[in-house]
C-alpha cells in the first residue's frame, strides 16, 4: 500500500511518446476506506431510511395522508409535536443563554460549580429526569403534594417542556458559551468608548452578534424535542406526539404502513431544520473581522448581576434536586414515602434481573464505541482531505444518523431488516431484527449504536482537522508514507483530543440511547434503557432510579477507560499554544 509512490515513479516516463499521459490513480487504500465508510452509512442509515420512505410513499400509504390531514386527532398530534418543539427550543435556549451569560459576563462566585451543574444532564440516562420529576412534582409529588399541598398533574405538555428543557439545555449552553467567549471584547469596548451604556452594548452589539448562535441551539433543541420518544412515553399522559404515535403504531397496532406515514411527517421538520442548518445557517455565521482579538472582558459588577445569578442558581438547584432524587431514590424503599435505606433495588439491578441487561448493553456498547469513533474520524479525514464533491455526500450520509429521529430510524430498521432477504432462492441476508433475528438482534443494535454515534465524532474530527495544517500530512507522504499510514501515524495522534471526545460521546450515547433501540430489542438481547422504561412504566421508581445510577456509573467508568487508552495528552492544544507564543 505504501509503496505506490515509488512504484509510480519509474513507470511514468517509460510510456511511448505521444501516448496519453496515464492519470494518477487514487490510492487503493483510500479507495478501500471510502468503500468501507460508504457501506457503513448505506447499510446503517441510507437503506433503512429509504425503506421508510418507500413504505410511506407506497400506493397503499397514500390515502393515509388525506386521512391524516383531515382527522382532528392526527392534526392535534402534529400540532402537539410542533408546540412541544417550539417551547422546548425557546426554554432550553433561554436557560443555556442564562448559564453562558453568567459564566462569561458576571462577576459572581461559584461559576465553576454552575458549569458542572449545567453539564450533568449530558450523561444522564433517559427517564432519569422524567421519573424524578414525577416523584418530586407529580400528583403525589414530594414538592407539589408534600410541601405545597396541591395535586398537580405534571403529565402532559408542562411536564414534557420542563423535563426536556432541563435535559437538553446543555447543548445550547456549550454552544453559546463558546460563542460568547469568542466575541472580540474590543467590539464591546468600542461601543463603550462611544458612550453606550452596558444595557445598550448588550442590546445593540452583543445580542445581534450572538443571533446566529442563538438560532442554532434553538433549532437543535427543537429537533431533539420533537424526535424524543422516551419522555413522552412516561410523562406524556394524553398529550400525544408524532414519535410516540409512530411507536404505538408499530408496537401496539402492528401497522407499519401507518408508522411509516407518521415517520415521514416527523421527518419533514427534522430534516428541514437539519438541512437549513447545514446549508443556510452555517453560511451566515458572522466572524469577527481581521486582527487578533484584543482587550479584556468587562464583567458586570453592579447590582444587576444578583437577580440574573439568582435565576441561574435556582435552575442549578432544581437540577441538583432532580439528580439527588435519582441517587437517593435508588437506595430508599419508596422515595417520598418510606425513606428506609435499602439495597434491594440495586441488588435487583446488579445481581438480579438487570444483570443480563447490564452485561448485554455494556458489551454491545463496547463493540460499537471504537468502531463509531474510528469511523467518525475516518469520514472526517476523507471528507476534509481526500474527497471533493463526493465528500459532501459522505458527510451528509454520515450525519443522517442523528438528523433523523431515532424512532424513525428504528422503524426503518424494522422495515429493512426484519424480513429475510432472498435473491432468487438464496438467502443473502437473514433477518437482523425481530424474534428469529441473527444473534438475537444484537447485530442490528450494534449497527444502530454506531450509526447514531458516528456524527459526534465526525463533527469534532472535522473541527480538529481544520486546525491541523495540511503541510504536516504532506510532509509525511513526502517522506514516503502512504495515505493510510499517514492517517494512522500523523493525523490520528494529532487529533487525539477529538478522538477522545468522539469516543466518550459515542459510549455515553450508546449506553443511554433508547428511541431506536426500543424497537430492536428482542427477548434474546436485554438493554438497560428499555428495562428502565418498563420499571418506570410500572411505577417501580426505585428500580428505575437504581438502573439510572448504575448506568451513570458505567458511563463514567467508560470515560475513564477511554481516557486511559487514548491518553490524556492533548497534543493539538499543545500545538495551538505553541503557535501563539
Amino acid at each position: 500500500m505504501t509503496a505506490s509512490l515509488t512504484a509510480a515513479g519509474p513507470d511514468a516516463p517509460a510510456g511511448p511518446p505521444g501516448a496519453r499521459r496515464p492519470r494518477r490513480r487514487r490510492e487503493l487504500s483510500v479507495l478501500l476506506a471510502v468503500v468501507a465508510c460508504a457501506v457503513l452509512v448505506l447499510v446503517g442509515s441510507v437503506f433503512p431510511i429509504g425503506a421508510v420512505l418507500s413504505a410511506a410513499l407506497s400506493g397503499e400509504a397514500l390515502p393515509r395522508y388525506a386521512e391524516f390531514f383531515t382527522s382532528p386527532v392526527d392534526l392535534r398530534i402534529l400540532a402537539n409535536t410542533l408546540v412541544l418543539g417550539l417551547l422546548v427550543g425557546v426554554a432550553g435556549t433561554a436557560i443555556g443563554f442564562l448559564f453562558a451569560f453568567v459564566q462569561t459576563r458576571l462577576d459572581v462566585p461559584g461559576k465553576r460549580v454552575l458549569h458542572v451543574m449545567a453539564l450533568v444532564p449530558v450523561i444522564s440516562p433517559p427517564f432519569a429526569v422524567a421519573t424524578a420529576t414525577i416523584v418530586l412534582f407529580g400528583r403525589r409529588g414530594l414538592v407539589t403534594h408534600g410541601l405545597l399541598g396541591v395535586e398537580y398533574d405534571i403529565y402532559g405538555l408542562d411536564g414534557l417542556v420542563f423535563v426536556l428543557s432541563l435535559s437538553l439545555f446543555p447543548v445550547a449552553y456549550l454552544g453559546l458559551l463558546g460563542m460568547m467567549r469568542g466575541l472580540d471584547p474590543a467590539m464591546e469596548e468600542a461601543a463603550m468608548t462611544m458612550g453606550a451604556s452596558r444595557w445598550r452594548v448588550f442590546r445593540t452589539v452583543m445580542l445581534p452578534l450572538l443571533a446566529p448562535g442563538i438560532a442554532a441551539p434553538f433549532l437543535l433543541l427543537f429537533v431533539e424535542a420533537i424526535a424524543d420518544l422516551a419522555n413522552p412515553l412516561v410523562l406524556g399522559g394524553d398529550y400525544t406526539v408524532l414519535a410516540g404515535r409512530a411507536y404505538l403504531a408499530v408496537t401496539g397496532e402492528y401497522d407499519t404502513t401507518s408508522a411509516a406515514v407518521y415517520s415521514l411527517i416527523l421527518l419533514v421538520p427534522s430534516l428541514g431544520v437539519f438541512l437549513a442548518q447545514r446549508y443556510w445557517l452555517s453560511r451566515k455565521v458572522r466572524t469577527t473581522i481581521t486582527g487578533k482579538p484584543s482587550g479584556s472582558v468587562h464583567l458586570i459588577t453592579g447590582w444587576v448581576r444578583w437577580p440574573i445569578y439568582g435565576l441561574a442558581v435556582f435552575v442549578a438547584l432544581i437540577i441538583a434536586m432532580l439528580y439527588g432524587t435519582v441517587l437517593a431514590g435508588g437506595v430508599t424503599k419508596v422515595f417520598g414515602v418510606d425513606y428506609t435505606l435499602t439495597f434491594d433495588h440495586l441488588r435487583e439491578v446488579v445481581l438480579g434481573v438487570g444483570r443480563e441487561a447490564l452485561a448485554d448493553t455494556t458489551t454491545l456498547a463496547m463493540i460499537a464505541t471504537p468502531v463509531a469513533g474510528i469511523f467518525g474520524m475516518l469520514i472526517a479525514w476523507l471528507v476534509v482531505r481526500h474527497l471533493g464533491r463526493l465528500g459532501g455526500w459522505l458527510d451528509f450520509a454520515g450525519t443522517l444518523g442523528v438528523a433523523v429521529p431515532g424512532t424513525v430510524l428504528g422503524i426503518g430498521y424494522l422495515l429493512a431488516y426484519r424480513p429475510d432477504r432472498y435473491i432468487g432462492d438464496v438467502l443473502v441476508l437473514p433477518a437482523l431484527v425481530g424474534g428469529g433475528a441473527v444473534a438475537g438482534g444484537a447485530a442490528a443494535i450494534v449497527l444502530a449504536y454506531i450509526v447514531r454515534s458516528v456524527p459526534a465524532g465526525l463533527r469534532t474530527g472535522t473541527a480538529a482537522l481544520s486546525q491541523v495544517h495540511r503541510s504536516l500530512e504532506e510532509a509525511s507522504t513526502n517522506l514516503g508514507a502512504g495515505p493510510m499510514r499517514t492517517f494512522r501515524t500523523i493525523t490520528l495522534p494529532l487529533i487525539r483530543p477529538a478522538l477522545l471526545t468522539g469516543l466518550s460521546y459515542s459510549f455515553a450515547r450508546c449506553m443511554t440511547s433508547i428511541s431506536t433501540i426500543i424497537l430492536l430489542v428482542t427477548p434474546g438481547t436485554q438493554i438497560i434503557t428499555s428495562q428502565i422504561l418498563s420499571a418506570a412504566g410500572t411505577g417501580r421508581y426505585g428500580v428505575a432510579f437504581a438502573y439510572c445510577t448504575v448506568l451513570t456509573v458505567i458511563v463514567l467508568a467508560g470515560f475513564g477507560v477511554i481516557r486511559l487508552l487514548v491518553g490524556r495528552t492533548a497534543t493539538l492544544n499543545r500545538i495551538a499554544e505553541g503557535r501563539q507564543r
Partner: protein
Amino acid sequence: MTAAGLASAQPGGGADAPGSAEQAGRLRLDGLTKVFRTRGADPVVAVDKVTLDVAPGEFITLLGPSGCGKTTTLRIVAGLEEATGGHVRLDGQPIDALPPQRRPMAMVFQSYALFPHLTVEQNIAYGLRVQRRGKEETETAIRIALTSMNLVGLENRSPHELSGGQQQRVALARALVVQPKVLLFDEPLSNLDAKLRGAMRAEIRRIQRRLGITSLYVTHDQDEAMTMSDRIVVMNKGRIEQVATPADIYFRPATVFVADFIGRANFIEVVPEQVDEGGATVTALGRTMTVPAHPDVRPNAGAYLMVRPETLSLAPAPMGGVGTVLRATFHGHSVDYEVETNAGTLAVTVPGPDPRTLLDEGANVSVAIDPARAYVLTKS
C-alpha cells in the same frame, strides 16, 4: 478638501473658533500605576508611576517593546482598565471615576472592532445614535465623514466586504464623528501592509492636525512614532524612559535603552574630562572633542559616547588609521561596515555609496566622529 470638510462639521474645533476652551482636551496622567494580580503568581507591575502632560491638540506616541505597559496606559485613559494608583485628569478634572462610556474620548482599536452586523454607515452612526444627536445632525455628520474619509459608495457594505485600508478608515471615521476631546489609538496600523501603512500615517496625522484633537497613539513601530508625533514617550518595563520630540529622542536619548531602541547606535566608553554648558570634553578614537551631553553626566565618571552609524565617516588609510573593516554589507542605497577599532567594533553606515570608493574587508580605515551629532550619556 477632505479634512477641511470634516473640520467644518466640528463647530469650535479649530483653534480660532469660538468656544475652543470647551473643546480643549488637556490630558494629564498623574503617577498612574497598574498592578495585575493573579492568584498564585507574583503581582506584575504593568504601569509604574507614569506621569505625563499632554497639551490640547498635541499628538503623543507611546512607544516601547511589547509588554512595556503602553497599551495598558492607553486603556486606563480610555477607562477600559482601572488604575491601581494615580489619576487621569482631563482639562483639570479627575475622570478616574467615570466609566468608559462617560468619557469624551474615542478609540481606534488594533482589530478595528467594527461591528460585523452593522453596515459601514451604521457603524459610523453608532456613537451619534448613542448620544441621541438629532436626525439631521447625524446625517450631515455621517455624510461629511464618509466624504472626507473617502468612503462614499461603501455606506451599505458590511465591514467584512471591505479591504483592510477601508476598514481602518471606517474605524477612524467612527471615532471622529463623535467629536471626542481625546483620540486614542491602539496600534491601529499594525494589520495593514507596509505601503498602506505609510499612506494611513499621513492621513491620520493630517486629519488630527486639522481638527486639533488631542491624541494618544500606541505603537511599537519606531518609524510610525518618529513620523507622526509631536512628542514621543518611550516606555520600558512600565516606566517612562524619556519624553521628547522625535529629533531629541534620536539625537539626545536620555538613556542607553532609548538610544538602543530607536535606530541603531554605537556606544564608546569614555571618561569626560570636563563638563559644562557646551557639553562634555571626551577623547575617543585618538581625538579629543567637545560633545553635547546629558545633564546627569559628571566629569571623571564613566560615560558612553553615543554615535549613530550614519554620522560616522570612513576614509581609506593604507598607512595605518584607527580601524580595520571586518565586514561590508552592500544594500544598494547604503553600505554597512563593521569596523574593528580600539574602542570596540563600530557599525558604520555610508548612505549613497560611491562605487569607486567601496571598501573591502580587511582594509585599514580612519573613522571620523561628528561631535555635533554625537551625544554623551551616563552609564546605566
